[in-house]
């Protein structure tokens, strides 16, 4: 899944509204992830989109796809290289 952003001036958009904004089917969004607020002041929200359905990246402002890399704890140390 790739991260993308959507905007809404009337509070958090529904999943269907987010899908329409991105030009994808609602089934292409991760329903369990939902619509996640990232900056309410800017009315900015995040959704997860199937990577093979993520729309092109030519639009401005850039809305994604953004990377969703693995993350790991910074400890304990594994196999340090001296």
């Amino acid at each position, binding site marked *: 899944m*790739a991260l993308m952003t959507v905007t809404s001036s009337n509070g958090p958009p529904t999943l269907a509204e987010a899908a329409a904004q991105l030009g994808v089917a609602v089934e292409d969004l991760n329903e369990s992830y939902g619509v996640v607020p990232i900056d309410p002041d800017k009315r900015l929200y995040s959704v*997860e989109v199937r990577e093979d359905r993520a729309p092109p990246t030519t639009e401005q402002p850039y809305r994604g796809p953004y990377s969703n890399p693995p993350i790991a704890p910074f400890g304990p140390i594994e196999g340090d290289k001296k």
Partner: protein
Amino acid sequence: MRIPVIVVLPKQEPLQESAAAGLEGKAPTDLSRARAPSGITLDSNFVAVPLGGAAAKPALESFAPERSESFAVRGFLDAESPEAIPTTADGNPLFADPRIEPFITCGGAPPVGDAAAVAAKLNVAALAAQGLSGDGVAIAVMDTGINLPHLTAKLGFAPKFDAANSWSAPGVPTAPGAHPVGHGTMCAFDALIAAPKATLLDFPILRGSAPGGSVMGGFLSVALMGFAQLLVNWGVAFSPTGARKYKALVSTNSWGIFHPSWDFPAGHPGRFLDNPNHPFNVVVSTLARAGADIVFAAGNCGTDCADGRCQGRTRHTIMGASAHSEVLTIAGCDTTDKRVGYSSQGPSIPGMYQEKPDVTAYTHFKGSEAFGVGSPDSGTSAACPVAAGCVAALRTKAALSSVAPSVMIQTLRQSARAALAGQRGWNSDYGFGIIDPAAAATSFGVAAVSERAEERVS
């Protein structure tokens, strides 16, 4: 060039006097009366050391100053280069006197000190005496989840815990406070060293992506969900402008990315590591703007003994949210104040805030034993919650209305204790120095407990 050497000299009265003074704990005596080889200047700041009798295995009694046949003394000689150093001086053997330093702490090393030593280093008793114990402050542990029974057993008391305002990541079957013992429990323990009366919030962001909840990693999108939930909680459920439940919120984050290959390629507009516009970096800004203090570990890719997952890459390894301008970024040192060899060094990745780490905190000590009896709380993973606990302790009295998160960061930088002789300003190993919550408290005017003002970094 002036080269320090150790020279072995036959017995003579000034050397016997010097050795006797050393054994009695007295100040070194003057060695100017001793017969020194030509070209050697003896160092009167060091006592002569008796080497015993002439036998191959001298008897113990022969090491008494009055009985010893020879003595080792420190001196200096002048030589054009190291290759020009003679092996003897007037027939007396010369030996090197090289600089020695303690071995740097790396992964796999045993603990260096314990949680009590960390508390002493942070002047926690003095903080507590001033009422700076974290009472009324929430610490959100963004990690693998907390195990309260283990934590209670190791702390010796039941910590304050807010299950209602904790979070359950999708797919994680265990309840807040009931997760397997591991990294998150270690972080919770370490956060309470300086702030034992703070309230823990459990945000198991590293357990939400794999079936059953992986205990050793997740995906950034889950962390984003956790941060968004924390934002909602802080803004609504315990709003500082509404029904005030907590004075302040501290978010401790001992996680990140070990290598850029985990992310989109360099130059991609959706990349995370060097992109302030990535949604996760945006939500970090939003939470900071809402008044939360956000603390991140610098990472474990230090030059001396980087974690294997760094793949040998040790430059610009403070990346992503760890290099965010609105978080407090923490390097690690052991309880002797020496940087641990795996602690990532600055400057951070180009494109992000460069002067990272901000400050250094303690790690690699015996604490939670979350990874087994005798195992250290290690990594910048441990240093980060230690620092977060310091912030929580300060927040007991340093109100958000007068001390914004940015001011908290700036004050902790300015009040940090110099880690290196003559350190002024930012340093790539330690940032602005070792965190000194007592000095910060003095700066805020909420306590007057600093005993180290003369060591302050300007």
